[in-house]
C-alpha cells in the first residue's frame, strides 16, 4: 500500500448534454487507488459513482456524455488521451470491470466457455483447444462446479450468482492489475452476495490486484474496503480509511447517511432520515450541494463551495463544518 498509486483521478468532470439541459454528473472528482488495495466509492443513486467508473473504462457514449475537464492516469499514463486502438490493449489486461447485471452484460447467443475463450483469442494469447482449456480453468477458479460441461452452457442456464461468477472469470482472465466492480452483488440474494464478496476478496489477494468497489451498501464497505470515497451530487465529499471515515465522519452527509441506516445487530432507536431528496444534477444547489438537506447548514454553506479540509492526516472532507461534525457526530 505504500507504492505509487496505480490510478489517479484528478478533478474529473463529466457532463451529459441533452437537448435542454446539461446534467453535471461528475463535478471535479479526485481520488487515488494504490496497487493491491480495495478502494470503495460509496454513494446513492445519482451521486456519479457509476459514471466515474464508466469514464475510467472509457465506456461513456459521447454524445451525450462529455469529459469537460480533469484527467485519469493509470500507471502514470493519461488514459483519456489515448487513441481508442491503444486503449484496447489496456482493457482486460490492465483494467477490467465487473458489472451489476450479469444477464445483460454477457452474450446470450454464445456459450459461456466460448465467450471466455474469445478473450484469449482476441488478445492473441491462445487459440483453439488451448483457449477453451484456459476458459475451463478460469471457470473452476471462480468456483463453478463441473466447469468442463458448464462451459458449453449458455447464460440463461446459469443462476444469478453463477452468472456473476462467469463475469468475474472474464474480468480476471487476462490478469488485470485493477478491477472495477460496479455494484457486483446488488442484484443478488444475501447468502449469494456473501459468496461473491468472498470470491472477489480471495481473487484480489491471490493476485495482488487493486479493486475499486462501487456500492451503495455500507456493510459491504465495512466488510472489505481499505479506503472509501463518499460521493454526493457528483463530488467526493469525504475520503480516507474506512475505519476513520465511517467510524467518525467529518462530513455532514456521511454522518446523516449512517444515521439513516437500520442495523440488524442491536435494534437502534428511531432512524434519523435525511430530509428531502438528492438534487437534480442539472440544477445543483449553490454553495455546498448538500446544504438544503443538511442539519448543520449555515449561510456560508448556501453561498460558498466548501474547501477541502484535511481532517486528520490522510483523510479529507469537503464541508464548511467539518470540525463541528467530527466533534459532535
Amino acid at each position: 500500500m505504500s507504492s505509487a498509486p496505480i490510478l489517479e483521478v484528478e478533478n474529473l468532470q463529466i457532463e451529459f448534454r441533452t437537448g435542454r439541459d446539461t446534467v453535471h454528473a461528475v463535478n471535479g472528482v479526485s481520488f487515488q487507488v494504490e496497487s493491491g488495495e480495495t478502494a470503495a466509492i460509496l454513494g446513492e443513486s445519482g451521486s456519479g459513482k457509476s459514471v466515474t467508473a464508466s469514464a475510467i473504462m472509457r465506456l461513456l457514449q459521447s454524445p451525450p456524455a462529455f469529459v469537460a475537464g480533469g484527467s485519469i492516469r493509470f500507471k502514470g499514463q493519461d488514459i483519456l488521451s489515448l487513441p481508442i486502438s491503444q486503449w484496447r490493449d489496456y482493457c482486460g489486461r490492465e483494467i477490467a470491470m465487473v458489472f451489476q447485471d450479469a444477464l445483460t452484460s454477457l452474450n446470450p447467443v454464445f456459450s459461456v466457455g466460448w465467450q471466455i475463450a474469445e478473450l484469449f483469442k482476441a488478445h492473441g494469447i491462445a487459440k483453439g483447444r488451448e483457449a477453451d482449456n484456459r476458459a475451463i480453468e478460469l471457470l473452476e477458479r471462480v468456483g463453478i462446479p463441473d466447469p468442463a460441461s458448464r462451459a458449453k452452457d449458455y447464460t440463461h442456464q446459469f443462476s444469478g450468482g453463477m452468472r456473476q461468477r462467469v463475469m468475474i472469470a472474464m474480468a480476471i482472465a487476462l490478469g488485470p492489475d485493477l478491477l472495477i466492480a460496479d455494484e457486483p452483488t446488488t442484484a443478488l440474494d444475501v447468502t449469494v452476495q456473501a459468496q461473491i464478496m468472498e470470491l472477489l476478496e480471495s481473487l484480489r489477494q491471490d493476485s495482488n490486484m487493486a479493486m475499486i468497489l462501487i456500492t451503495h451498501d455500507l456493510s459491504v464497505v465495512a466488510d472489505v474496503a481499505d479506503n472509501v470515497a463518499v460521493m454526493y451530487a457528483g463530488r467526493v465529499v469525504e475520503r480516507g480509511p474506512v475505519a476513520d471515515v465511517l467510524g467518525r465522519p467529518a462530513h455532514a452527509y456521511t454522518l446523516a447517511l449512517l444515521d439513516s441506516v437500520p442495523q440488524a445487530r442491536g435494534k437502534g432507536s428511531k432512524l434519523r432520515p435525511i430530509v428531502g431528496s438528492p438534487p437534480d444534477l442539472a440544477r445543483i444547489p449553490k454553495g455546498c450541494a448538500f446544504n438544503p438537506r443538511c442539519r448543520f447548514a449555515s449561510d456560508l454553506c448556501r453561498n460558498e463551495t466548501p474547501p477541502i479540509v484535511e481532517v486528520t492526516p490522510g483523510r479529507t472532507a469537503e464541508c464548511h463544518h467539518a470540525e463541528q461534525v467530527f466533534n459532535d457526530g
Partner: protein
Amino acid sequence: MMVENSSISPTDDQPILEVRELAKHFEIGSGLSFKRKTGVVKAVDGVSFSLRPGETLGLVGESGCGKSTVARTLLRLEEATSGSALFHGEDIFKATPQELKSIRRRLQVIFQDPYASLNPRMTVEEIISEPWVIHPDALPASERPDKVRALLENVGLRREHAERYPHEFSGGQRQRIGIARAIALDPEVLICDEPVSALDVSVQAQVINLLMEIQERLGIAYVFIAHDLSVVRHMSHRVAVMYLGRIVEIGTEEQVYNHPRHPYTKALLSAEAPLDFSKDRKKHQRIILEGEVPSPSNPPSGCRFRSRCWKAQEVCAGEAPPLEYVNNHAVACYFPEDSPAG
C-alpha cells in the same frame, strides 16, 4: 423486551388475521405446449402465522422463498391452492365477491414499485380518492377533497400536491402517495410488500419512519415483507423467516435476531456484515452457505434447507421437520441451534 418501537403493544388479543396451512402451487407447462402440465412449483407450501392488532409481523427471506406470494394470496390477487386465512374469523379464501369487498376495505396493501403502482394518468387527488369511489359509503363525496389534503399532510406531502401527476414526484414521494391511498379507508391491516426496497437509503429511512408513525397513530397491524434483514428487524415486533415456501423460524424480533435457532436463519444473519468501523474490527466471520436456493419445482425431500445445511443428517431427508413452539419461538429443524432463550 418485545416492543421498543411503538407505543401500542401487541396484546394477547384475538388475532386479527390467522393464516393456516396456506399453500399456493403454480402448474408449469412444457415449453412447447401450454396444455401439458409438466410440473408444479410449490411457491408456498404450508405456511401458518397469526397477526395481532397493532403489531408488525416481518416476513423475511431470499427471492423465491414465497413471501410475496403469501401477500398476493392474502389479497386474493392469486387464488390459494389450499389452506385458510381467517380475517376476524371470516375465511378470505372462501369469501364471496361481496364479502371480499368488505374485507379489502379493512385489509389494504402497499406495493414495492412506486412507479408501477400509481396510474400515470390520474392526479394524486384521483389516486387517493379511488378507494372511496369503490366504497362510496366510507366518506361522503363532499368531504373527500379535504380528506385527501389532510392525508397528504399526514404522509409528509403538501396540500397543493393533490393536483399534480405521479411523474412529478420522486420515488420516495410516490411511495408516500401509495401509503396515503392505503390508509384512506382506515384499514386494520396493511400488507407491505417490499415497500422500501426500491428506495435509496436516505429516502428509505423517511418511509420507514412514516410507516412506524402511522402505526403508532392509527394502530394498524402490518405484514411487512422484505428481503433486507436490518429493515425487517427495525420495523417488526415479530419475524418469520421463510425458505423455499415454508416458514423455518418464527418468534419475536429479539428471539430471531439475537438467538436464532434455525441454521438457515443463522447463516442469513451472518451473511450481512455488521456496521463496525472501529480500528480493531475483526474480520467478520460468515457462515458461507454452499450453492444456491434449489428450484421450488424440485425441492429437496424432508427439510428443504438440508441440501445447503452443514448439520443435515439422514433424518432430515425423511419427514419434513414440524414447526415447534417453545416460548412463542418456533423452529422447524431437527437440530436447532442454542436452547431457546428465556
